[in-house]
């Protein structure tokens, strides 16, 4: 097969023959189908094998054995993810889809053995063979394609806004397999609106590339985002081994029964003419918040023009910014993910029942968006809502996913009389109006008659072995002794006082003791200081009994004062040298002379027999004045 006529290949999907469901292995489901049960000789048709299983099963090695007379290519393998949301939680099923493109070389009835694949090392096969009737060319009306279409993409019928018209008629290549378009776009405005929307300033590749386009960049959890997968090309090519993006954070719903049937369009990429083929269109629904990646679309191509075996291309990875619907005005009972527009309708049968029996409440939610998983039922005493059964019917209208889900409840009515059942509600977020709405359905009343001979309410179904309160302790007939416990902590001040008071006391006591000790040490130290000794000696002068004592005490006071003023221990210095030493220590010459004079007078008076009291008084006065001057010198007030 020289090139793939995609239009012809994918067109006959209208007739899909499911030939059975294979036996399950680990919950695996295997289906096989053929795109058309009647084809012409040379017409391409598709055999598809799809397998789904739980999250932990891995499929591989799809295999199709062809009978003589049929030849084909493939498989091209895509992945699938199915999310089922039920009362037991969300369940993921994953699987693959393998497609073979086949062509018959002769008319006849063909039986294709059931295709198979490997699932975790075991071989699974569809349980029925596929049957195809091949008729001679021309006996079956052609839907698309023609002899002059070098790309085989749906015939010459270019879109109405195609500026090239019958471009390929004029191109008339010698070999259509090696055709390449190399035409500039002279007037971009001449392209139609859809072509302009697909135009790009620059392509990812000079010959072909894949591209995913999302209809919105921001969405809320559960809101539909439509993805379109495109192939941009300007050379003839044959695509195979196509793998869809993984879409692991999305619920995927196909929008096209026959992918790839959209008409090819022409557009401008980097101011040159390119073709664009929409490969598929899917609706995806974000399952969580965050910057969610769609993943990349992969495919391999054979490009005869390049004379290379095959090239591999991957698309861009689209990122959707997904958030929760706003918290503002969010109704009570809203479940994140219930996004769209819905209506509820309810029927209750029968309207008369017996206490303890059940009535059937069927609530149909219909509208656009992913169908809700749960409805808000009116729970009240006397009504017991059992787990509902759900039936789905999906639908796609104008590219919007919708349908209906019917919740079948069995409601046990325990009360008697006219029982008002209330309303069933579905709070949801309308993404178009960006607001919350609540769909409601009134259930009306049920007439409940008492059960014959019943005095006790019936036990609910599934009740675990009888009375749940069988071991309930008996009531108390008298009030026992009880003293209310005091649980409050003490007030803050007493609490901190009791907590930290002792420690503070210990610390304060320690400081006090240290202070006292230091004071004593200071006092002891001061008693030996020269200044203190000098003043004390002056004080002793008043108590001196005679002149010799006065002289001795005065001499001692002067020496202490000298030491206090100059740190010079002057007792050991000869009197004639003292003046010089004192001057060297910074005393003035006059003060040094006074010192020498007083000390000289002390020496004379001490050994002067019969010294008078007047002499002693003079010395005492002179010594006191001198000591005072010397002590001032110590404090910086030098005379």
């Amino acid at each position: 097969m020289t090139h793939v006529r995609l239009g012809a290949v994918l067109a006959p999907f209208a007739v899909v023959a499911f030939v059975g469901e294979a036996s399950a292995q680990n919950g695996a489901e295997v289906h096989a189908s053929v795109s058309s049960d009647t084809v012409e000789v040379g017409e391409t048709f598709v055999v598809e094998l799809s397998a789904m299983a739980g999250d932990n099963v891995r499929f591989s090695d799809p295999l199709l054995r062809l009978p003589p007379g049929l030849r084909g290519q493939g498989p091209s393998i895509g992945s699938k993810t199915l999310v089922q949301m039920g009362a037991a939680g969300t369940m993921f099923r994953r699987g693959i889809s393998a497609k073979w493109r086949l062509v018959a070389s002769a008319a006849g009835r063909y039986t294709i053995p059931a295709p198979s694949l490997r699932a975790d090392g075991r071989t699974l096969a569809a349980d029925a063979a596929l049957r195809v009737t091949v008729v001679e060319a021309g006996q079956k009306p052609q839907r698309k394609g023609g002899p002059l279409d070098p790309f085989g993409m749906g015939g010459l019928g270019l879109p109405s806004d195609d500026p090239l018209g019958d471009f390929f008629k004029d191109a008339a290549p010698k070999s259509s397999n090696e055709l390449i378009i190399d035409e500039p776009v002279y007037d971009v405005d001449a392209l139609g609106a859809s072509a302009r929307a697909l135009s790009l300033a620059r392509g990812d590749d000079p010959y072909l590339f894949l591209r995913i386009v999302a209809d919105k960049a921001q969405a809320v959890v559960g809101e539909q985002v439509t993805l379109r997968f495109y192939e941009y090309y300007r050379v003839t090519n044959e695509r195979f081994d196509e793998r869809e993006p993984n879409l692991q954070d999305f619920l995927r719903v196909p929008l096209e029964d026959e992918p790839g049937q959209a008409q090819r369009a022409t557009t401008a990429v980097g101011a040159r003419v390119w073709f664009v083929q929409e490969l598929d269109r899917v609706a995806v629904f974000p399952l969580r918040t965050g910057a969610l990646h769609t993943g990349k679309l992969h495919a391999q191509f054979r490009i005869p023009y390049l004379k290379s075996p095959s090239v591999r291309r991957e698309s861009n990875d689209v990122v959707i910014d997904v958030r929760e619907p706003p918290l503002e005005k969010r109704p009570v009972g809203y479940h994140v993910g219930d996004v769209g527009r819905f209506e509820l309708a309810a029927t209750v049968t029968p309207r008369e029942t017996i206490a303890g029996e059940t009535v059937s409440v069927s609530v149909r939610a219909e509208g656009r968006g992913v169908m809700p998983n749960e409805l808000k039922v009116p729970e009240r005493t006397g009504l017991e809502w059992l787990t509902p059964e759900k039936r789905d019917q999906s639908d796609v209208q104008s590219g919007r996913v919708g349908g209906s889900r019917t919740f079948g409840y069995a409601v046990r009515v325990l009360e008697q009389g006219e029982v008002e059942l209330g309303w069933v509600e579905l709070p949801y977020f309308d993404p178009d109006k960006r607001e919350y709405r609540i769909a409601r359905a009134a259930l009306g009343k049920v007439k409940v008659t008492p059960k014959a001979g019943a005095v006790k309410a019936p036990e609910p179904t599934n009740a675990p072995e009888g009375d749940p309160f069988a071991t309930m302790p008996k009531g108390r007939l008298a009030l026992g002794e009880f003293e209310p416990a005091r649980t409050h902590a003490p007030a803050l001040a007493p609490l901190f006082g009791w907590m930290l008071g002792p420690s503070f006391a210990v610390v304060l006591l320690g400081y006090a003791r240290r202070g006292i000790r230091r004071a004593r040490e200071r006092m002891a130290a001061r008693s030996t200081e020269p200044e203190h000794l000098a003043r004390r000696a002056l004080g002793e002068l008043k108590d001196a009994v005679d002149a010799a004592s006065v002289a001795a005490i005065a001499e001692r006071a002067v020496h202490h004062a000298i030491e206090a003023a100059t740190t010079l221990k002057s007792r050991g210095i000869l009197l004639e040298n003292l003046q010089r030493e004192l001057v060297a220590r910074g005393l003035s010459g006059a003060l040094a002379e006074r010192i020498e004079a007083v000390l000289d007078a002390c020496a004379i008076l001490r050994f002067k027999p019969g010294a008078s009291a007047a002499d002693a008084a003079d010395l005492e006065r002179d010594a006191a004045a001198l000591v005072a001057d010397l002590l001032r010198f110590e404090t910086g007030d030098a005379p």
Partner: protein
Amino acid sequence: MTWHPRLGLVLLTGALVTLATSSQADDAASPREPFRRGAEALAAGRYDDAIAELEAFADREAPHPDASFDLGAAYVLRVKSGAERPADLGRAAAAFEETLLLRPSDADARHALELVRAEIARRRARTGKAVVVATPTLDRALVGLASPRAWSALAIAFGWLLALGLWLRRRRGTAELAGLLLAPVSGVLLAALVPITLWADHLDRHRRPAVLVAREAYLGNEDGVSLGGDPVVEGAHLELVETRGDRAQVRYGAREGWIPAETMRVVRRR
């Protein structure tokens, strides 16, 4: 004076009648009378009457664990009798919670509360709804290990041990070594116990325990807009932060939000 036996009999009878009448009057005026009537009604299977009397007792008198227990038992037995009214199980749970708060050692109340919570969970499971019970956050779990008074006593004890350690440090020999060990250890423990004590006291003074007495309630903001997440289920333990009008701000697990005040019952402590 002549003794008349007949007159004596009449006087004695009159005295007894007077005494009995007086005793009945005292009983009627006794604050415990509603409890007595409630307990009798409970024993006789008149659960509506028992609930009315015991609720009246609870409204008028200080909480008593035995009265709270009987109230919870009355609600449970009304459910059991088939005459259940909305939120009976939630109210039973609140009553048993009150009993346990007043008398933590009451094994019967603990068992009854477990039965009630199990039945609530069983009913939710039967309707396909998840039974999500929010567990208290770490700080609540820690603080809830003891009463604020117990925490403060512990803090005071370690305060004294710290003082002893500081004093011993100034001694010589073994005493000094003991002080060197005791002072930092007790200081660290005291530093940890002070905030725990203060937080426990704050919660004790400013938060009140409560129980949800509706089938379920969704936490919302002050304007009643749902905050999302799992609903608070009947009988769930709540922490009442404040009430404002007909709304109550509660904490459920680690989440805080507003619910209708009528959907919860405060558990009394004193």
